[in-house]
């Protein structure tokens, strides 16, 4: 697989979250993209995406601890031996009921699998020490990805694995007439529109002929990409698996 002909990429929040991991065994489409393409292309993002990525990672930590709390406080120890699938189903139902939103639960279920013995231990004995131990392990696990993203905001460009486009604007509505025209696409996630225009602003201010906007977000970007690409000439919306397909 050679380099992409659109060799400057702008990545969205989810890709940036994925960028906190050194993918070896090519975990999913994001991991494959970062492993394969990252070495051939220059990857950019914006401070806005870093801020959103930090939010996503911290939210995962909150959900992970919430799962720990739910199992410790509410799992019926008398009911059954705490087999891991039963624990996962219990946590899924509690989190989905509590927040009504299943975003991020996939990550929490992966954590439960990874900490299988500890979560089973939580269901067997009513002791706070296991809860405290797990809470500490979760903190330790999330320290590096958070540190990675925070460092992106602080380090000199030449040292970064991802370059940040700093010259973003706060008032795209007045600069680009297309901004208001795309409002309906991003009604539920208005920050996604600002992120897209960070990319378009980078395209125009750096004088690029084209810029590949890489995103895993099917709802807003991918399903509306024809319209977005027509409105913002030079922007090419791509899923990570489309880029690595060659």
């Amino acid at each position, binding site marked *: 697989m050679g380099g992409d002909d659109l060799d400057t990429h702008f990545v969205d929040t989810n890709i940036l979250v994925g960028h906190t991991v050194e993918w070896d065994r090519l975990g999913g489409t*994001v991991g494959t993209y970062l492993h394969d393409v990252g070495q051939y292309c220059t990857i950019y993002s914006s401070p806005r995406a870093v801020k959103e990525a930090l939010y996503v990672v*911290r939210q*995962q930590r909150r959900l992970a601890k919430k799962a720990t709390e739910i199992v410790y406080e509410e799992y019926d120890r008398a009911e059954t031996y705490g087999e891991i699938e039963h624990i996962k189903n219990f946590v899924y139902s509690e989190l989905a009921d509590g927040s009504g939103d299943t975003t*991020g639960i*996939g*990550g929490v279920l*992966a954590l439960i699998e990874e900490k299988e013995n500890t979560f089973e231990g939580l269901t067997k004995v009513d002791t706070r020490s296991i809860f405290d131990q797990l809470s500490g392990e979760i903190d330790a696990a999330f320290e590096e990805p958070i540190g990675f993203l925070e460092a992106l905001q602080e380090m000199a460009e030449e040292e970064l694995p991802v370059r940040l486009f700093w010259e973003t604007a706060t008032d795209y509505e007045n600069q680009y007439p297309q901004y208001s025209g795309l409002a309906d696409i991003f009604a539920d996630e208005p920050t996604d529109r600002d992120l897209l225009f960070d990319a378009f602003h980078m395209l125009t201010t750096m004088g690029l002929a084209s810029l590949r906007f890489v995103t895993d977000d099917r709802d807003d970007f991918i399903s509306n990409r024809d319209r977005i690409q027509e409105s913002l000439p030079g922007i090419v919306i791509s899923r990570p698996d489309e880029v690595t397909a060659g």
Partner: protein
Amino acid sequence: MSDTSHPVDRLVSVLEHASRQLDDDEYLFFFDINKLLYYLDSRIDEDNSFKEVLSVFWYEDGPVATVGQTVADRSQEAGIFETTPTPHGQRFHPAGGTISVTDDDEDLQEAKEAIESILAEEYEITASKEEKIDQVYADAPYEFQRRFKKDVVPEVEELGDVLGPLPEDVYKAVSRAEAYLPLDDAFRDVNDLYSQYLDVSRSVLAQQDSVSDEVATRFEELTTAYWEAFCAKLRLETAPEDADADSVSRWRSDYESKVETFRTALDAFETEFVDDDAGGQPTRVAEDSTWGRVADGLLNSSD
């Protein structure tokens, strides 16, 4: 002369009845008045007319009645209480005054009997503030409130004291409380502020044997600023449906202001006390690490 007393005056009459249950050396704080109104609301029948004026929301020290301040002020005007200032707030001493109400009906009688019973059986005037807070937090809408007040605040207040907790233990208390943040989407932004506060806590407190007095003082201020921001949000989310639009607008502005205050304090604390010298390139974690597996599950889940 009106045939019907103003609802607030009727409530003040109930508080007057409460004042007459106190011993000569007993008094109330404004905190107590709010708690008594809360318990009154929970004791009277659903169709008691006092329910309409006893709207309750949750705030920094527990439940607060929307008319609490009005009732306290009116009771002073009527001479039912006279106040003396103390470092812990104003004391409301029974002063023997009375308020005239024209409609001494069943609802008022039920309310008076309820307040009498509350003082006799449920609410101990002379208990410590911590005991009173603990009592009402059993009903708090979010467990995070109780955890933060009982587990985090005392540790933070004693940080830096000679016999106080280790900084590492304070950090662990802050960390454990993160598990109890509300799941409601309305709290997502204020929850993220807590996570940022936790990250800064780790940078300054974890693996430290001691901290300076300045760090301890500033960390306590930061913690208080967070609690005020959270409670301002809590007030918005637990506001009664019949709360007037002006109050809600004022509360929203207060929340935004307190968030800004916290952000400023957090940035300042981080700038002054967090060591920026992290040492070289930021590192990515291995795919088979805990975070690697979580990220894989997060990014590749079919939902």
